């Protein structure tokens, strides 16, 4: 099987969908002519292949970029826009939250907004809190939006293709550090449905629910725990909204224990939603308290030792698991 970084997998999905559907176009800051020239990046080569009509470099104007998507989607095109880094979602958020997500409802179901917002997220590249601030919990708390946050190149490809074909607005969040970690990607066309979690490692003793880059931490920790006889089941949400509560509940009903792991800061993070769902619907199965392993309630600092301190690691996850097993 081909080995690709997540950026390359996203790139394949974009290419295939642009070939398939002439209504698909991409727009954003540097999606065409870029300061980088790396084939590891998601939009590499697309300008050369599809030309400036379908690969649109925009001014530094996040609200206009998002509005472009809203209007073009209503007209029946399939915009895939890029918001360079998650903190800049704020600047596009009126268009995405008050418009993309609501205008269909406000029209009584007459207008539709099939658009994709791709967004880079994650800490780990030393740029500090105005570039690194995971806000997936914001997006997941917004009726009318779907939220996808893949953890592997293979998932990213199949999910992005589904997102582009979805008749609704989808926010697709890519942890930038995953661009550079190659993984197997099936050849040829395939789709992964939005709204389905994936058990990335089965286990009987504890359920670890996670998504995006933290999957790697979860699997690493699970391997080490297994060596000590603790079998963690790792559930990769893949989609935060709509949330696959069935898969979560089935796992917790089996293991009786829940740890939620995410990179975003703790208070108000999406772990709370997972905890609430479990506490509502699998209470009788629970044998132990919840543990959350998350970023602390601070902005992401720039200095390497501080940034490492911010990002949850295997040691913290292992300690949390052992605490409740």
């Amino acid at each position, binding site marked *: 099987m081909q080995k690709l970084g997540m950026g390359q997998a996203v790139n394949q999905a974009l290419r295939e969908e642009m070939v398939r559907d002439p209504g698909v176009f991409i727009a954003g800051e540097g999606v065409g002519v870029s300061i980088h020239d790396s084939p590891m990046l998601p939009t590499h080569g697309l300008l050369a292949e599809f030309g400036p009509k379908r690969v649109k470099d925009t001014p530094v104007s996040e*609200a*206009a970029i998002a509005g472009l998507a809203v*209007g073009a989607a*209503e*007209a029946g095109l399939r915009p895939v826009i890029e918001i360079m880094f998650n903190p800049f979602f704020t600047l596009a958020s009126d268009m995405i939250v008050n418009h993309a997500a609501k205008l269909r409802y406000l029209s*009584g179901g007459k207008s539709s907004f099939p658009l994709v917002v791709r967004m880079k997220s994650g800490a780990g590249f030393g740029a500090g809190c105005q570039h690194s601030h995971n806000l997936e919990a914001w997006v997941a708390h917004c009726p009318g939006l779907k939220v996808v946050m893949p953890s592997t190149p293979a998932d990213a490809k199949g999910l992005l293709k589904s997102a582009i074909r979805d008749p609704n607005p989808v926010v697709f969040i890519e942890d930038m550090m995953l661009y550079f970690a190659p993984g197997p990607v099936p050849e040829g066309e395939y789709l992964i449905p939005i709204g389905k979690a994936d058990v990335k490692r089965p286990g009987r003793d504890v359920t670890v629910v996670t998504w995006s880059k933290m999957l790697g931490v979860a699997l690493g920790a699970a391997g080490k725990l297994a060596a000590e006889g603790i079998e963690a089941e790792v559930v990769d949400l893949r989609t935060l909204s709509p949330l696959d509560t069935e898969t979560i509940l089935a796992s917790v009903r089996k293991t009786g224990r829940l740890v939620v792991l995410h990179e975003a800061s703790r208070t108000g993070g999406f772990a709370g939603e997972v905890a609430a769902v479990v506490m509502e619907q699998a209470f009788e199965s629970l044998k132990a308290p919840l543990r959350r392993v998350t970023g602390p309630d601070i902005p992401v600092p720039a200095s390497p030792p501080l940034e490492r301190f911010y990002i949850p690691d295997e040691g913290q996850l292992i300690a949390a698991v052992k605490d409740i097993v």
Partner: protein
Amino acid sequence: MPASKEKKLEMLRSMLLARKFEEELTELCKIKNKIPGMMILCTGQEAVGAGVCAALEADDVIITNHRSHSHLLAKGADPKLLMAEIFCKRTGCNKGKSGTLHLAVPEVNAPCTTTVVGGGPPIAVGRAFAQQYRGEKRVTVCFIGDGAANEGSVHEAMNLASVWRLPVVFVCENNVYAGAQRYEEHTRAANIADRAAGYGMPGVVVDGNDAAAVYDSVREARERALAGEGPTLIEYKTYRWRGHGENDMQLYQPKDEIARWQAACPIPRLRADMLAEGLVTADEVRTMEAQAESVVLEAIRFAEDSPYPEPHEALEDVFA
């Protein structure tokens, strides 16, 4: 090409309809709980909607805002469905999900109405982009107010539309107020249209109470857009007779200012011109007025007779 007789008749008809439509709403608002939510009227500004939409083809798109009645009626929206939506009834054009503030009428190419001030222009850019992308000979008109012009989104949208030569016409209805704030208190430049040069596009100031002039200015901007030269910003000087909404006490609006602008009402003005030019007779005007009245009264009857949506219908129409 100045407005033909037919176009002038169309404008007069749509102004009469919008005026009657809103005069009735003014009255209905006095009856407690008759109409839920806010009530935002464009009484006195009808020449803008009428002139703009008369200059458009059916396939041209408009993106409008919270003060949309005359725009939508002029674009051909069904008064019954609008009225029912304003009453928040199930038969309304948006099934009661919207109410008066975000009336969307995709049937007449008014697919996205937003009450977020400044929300329209970025969307209009996207709609116009689709027209350009597909090679359609169509334009998108975006209505904003003078206050909206100070939202960042409007700036970003105008710049992008100009850089990409998109077929957009930005229509700024300068009605002197943004909420309770006078123009001079929110903008230092003499005209909103003065901003156009900063985007490398034409900025035009037009008498917004002169329907024929409105028509002409949009025809010209539309030509330019279709020729691939990009957007135009047209500012229409007009006035908001009523408060920001019907709950506005208008304490800050000088009475004589209102009276002055009422004396400059766009409807008698167009009517007088048309009578003078022999394009219409006094009798024909009376017939048009009667027609407007009967259409509006029928719309109100329809709205009043319609049921509210069932509560659980709230759950529908979120996702396609």
